């Protein structure tokens, strides 16, 4: 029996129309999130991960525009919905935790105000009931003294606390899908571990999640499947186990080598040589080929398609078959 998908993205294309040119931030990506699963969306900074999340909610900021594709949520294409219908979906069906906890809360309103506002937007409750719900949410995200902390303003709280509150706000209306955009990136290492632990616990609530990160180490223990992205395109999709044990795309392998917390042997994380390309005029063919150690001549000419090289394992690389066969030699 095929697992049911809560979200299915087909060929999503989002461009930014800037003075300097058209930034092809997300260029025809497809992915799906299954009921109850956590999908890791991994790629270096600038790969288009955040833009993908914002596209799902249709809140891509100016001058960005979604120019094509389909975003099927529970069988309906979100790109065909009206703005009013989208407002009912945002925060209620699909929630979002933004990248930087330091700036994701409005500095001039109290936490109580910002939480109850979202609760009352989507649920027909009184102010007191909303406040009660907010206090309960604080318990869920493990904040001590919720009755007192709730009256604070963002500047009175630490980064980790703000991120917990951002998570609480995202969870306030029991969304079916959570988009967590680098929820740990801008935090201290110890706090990172705590937040990650919290995210793991959230999985138990049965919610589906897209966990966005540039660090394979972060998704390792949380994600069920991983979707590797590079320069606006998907490179490889497989279960977390497969990606860690048997990565095929050279970019996935490079990312794994760059993991900061290597559990097996404590090696210095490797840095992928070169930089993510300019997305106004990206490289032809496979966008990774200029940085790829295994690039062949055709890599610059042919755009590789996602191909299922083994059950549930998709790779967009024209040499994928070859790598599969010689996995041992090509690996470290």
């Amino acid at each position, binding site marked *: 029996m095929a697992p049911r998908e809560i979200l299915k993205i087909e060929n999503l294309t989002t461009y930014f129309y800037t003075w300097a040119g058209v930034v092809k931030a997300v260029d025809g990506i497809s992915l799906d999130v299954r009921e109850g699963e956590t999908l890791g969306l991994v790629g270096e900074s600038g790969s288009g991960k955040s833009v993908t999340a914002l596209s799902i909610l249709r809140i891509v*900021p100016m001058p960005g525009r979604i120019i094509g594709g389909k975003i099927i949520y529970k069988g309906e294409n979100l790109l065909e919905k009206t703005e009013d219908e989208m407002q009912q979906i945002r*925060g209620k069906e699909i929630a979002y935790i933004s*990248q930087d906890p330091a700036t994701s809360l*409005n500095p*001039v309103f*109290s936490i109580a105000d910002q939480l109850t506002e979202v609760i009352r*937007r989507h649920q027909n409750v009184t102010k007191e009931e909303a406040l009660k719900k907010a206090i309960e949410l604080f318990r869920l995200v493990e904040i001590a003294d919720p*009755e007192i902390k709730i009256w604070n303003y963002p500047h009175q709280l630490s980064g980790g606390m703000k991120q917990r509150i951002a998570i609480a706000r995202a969870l306030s209306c029991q969304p079916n899908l959570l988009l967590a955009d680098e929820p740990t990136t801008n935090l201290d290492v110890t706090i990172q571990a705590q937040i990650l632990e919290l995210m793991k616990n959230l999985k138990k609530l049965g919610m589906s999640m897209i966990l966005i990160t540039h660090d394979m180490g972060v998704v390792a223990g949380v994600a069920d499947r991983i979707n590797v992205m590079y320069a606006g395109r998907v490179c490889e999709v497989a279960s977390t186990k497969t990606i860690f044990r048997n990565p095929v795309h050279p970019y996935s392998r490079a990312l794994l080598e760059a993991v900061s917390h290597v559990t097996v042997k404590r090696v210095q994380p490797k840095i992928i040589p070169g930089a993510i390309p300019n997305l106004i005029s990206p490289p032809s063919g496979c966008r990774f080929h200029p940085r790829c150690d295994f690039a062949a001549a055709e890599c610059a000419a042919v755009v590789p398609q996602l191909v299922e090289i083994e059950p549930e394992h998709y790779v967009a690389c024209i040499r994928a078959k070859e790598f599969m066969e010689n996995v041992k030699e090509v690996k470290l």
Partner: protein
Amino acid sequence: MPIKTNVLQSILYKIKHMAKSSMAKYVLRRLLYLIPIFFGILIIVFVSTRMAGDPVKLMTGLNPRITAEARERLTQYYGLDQPLYYQFLKFVWEMLHGNLGNSYAIRGGTAVTTLVGDYAWETFKLQLTALFFSLLIAIPIGILSARKQYSKLDVTVTTTSLIGTCIPIFYMGIVAILIFSYSLGWFPYGAAHSLDPSRYPFGSYLLDELWHLFLPATVLTFAELAPVVLLVRSSMLEVLRQDYILAARASGLSERTVIYKHALRNALIPVVTYVGLYFGGMLAGAPITEKVFNWPGVGRLYVEAISKLDFPVITGITVFVTLMVLIANLVTDIAYAYIDPRIRIE
């Protein structure tokens, strides 16, 4: 129900907490700062005007038959023979009793408080009308322009505002008078009232007042409009780029809540600064505006008082202007604290 009591506890905590960190302490601290500043300014102006010249000489200069003895008597009469510190202390003492002295020359010997009161009312009437309408028009235009950045509307608004800020008020004023008063004859040339009650439109004093106010207030409104539009637009653009706006949108809040609650509250912080500074600028710029429109305000009174070395009037206006600017500052600070909790709560 334990949860229910929790909510109650929480609300109780809030009430207690708010009472503790109330604005009163903040305002009191600000007020205490103002006292030394006020006296500092007073000393500077008091001393510098008294070094500017001898008003008795100026008053009697045109009279060839004045005797030295008569001059002496006048000097004594005005208390100008006393040492400066004594004059100052006497002035402060009188001021604390609500007496700013009588004028030397303007409206011959009127109490300065009456004089300044009359003229200040005209200044405020004009300037506050202009400020009110310029904010009322500029804030929505600035918001709209920012929301539709680079659209035709935005480009038109920005260009017009930039041109607007470059045209000096006296030029705008003179052109407006030439067109609407001189050529078309719709409005009076200047002044705040008709001298002759028979000229009141429909015999109404109020209509006469509005008729006189209209042209200068409109010109001033337009002069104020441009900078406020540009300020609101740029401040709004900055705020709209923030993560918390994205987060608010992502929570499904309506566009109205996102713009008029989350964005505007933050975008207004620089506007509050502007309005605070405006009060200083308004009184400093008043002489020019009031000259152009022949408006009987403090600006014009100030110029006249200085040219006649009318010490009590000069000092009186200074006291008044200083107080106004300090109060404006205080109000600005309170408005800040109201808008931005980062200032209110350490």
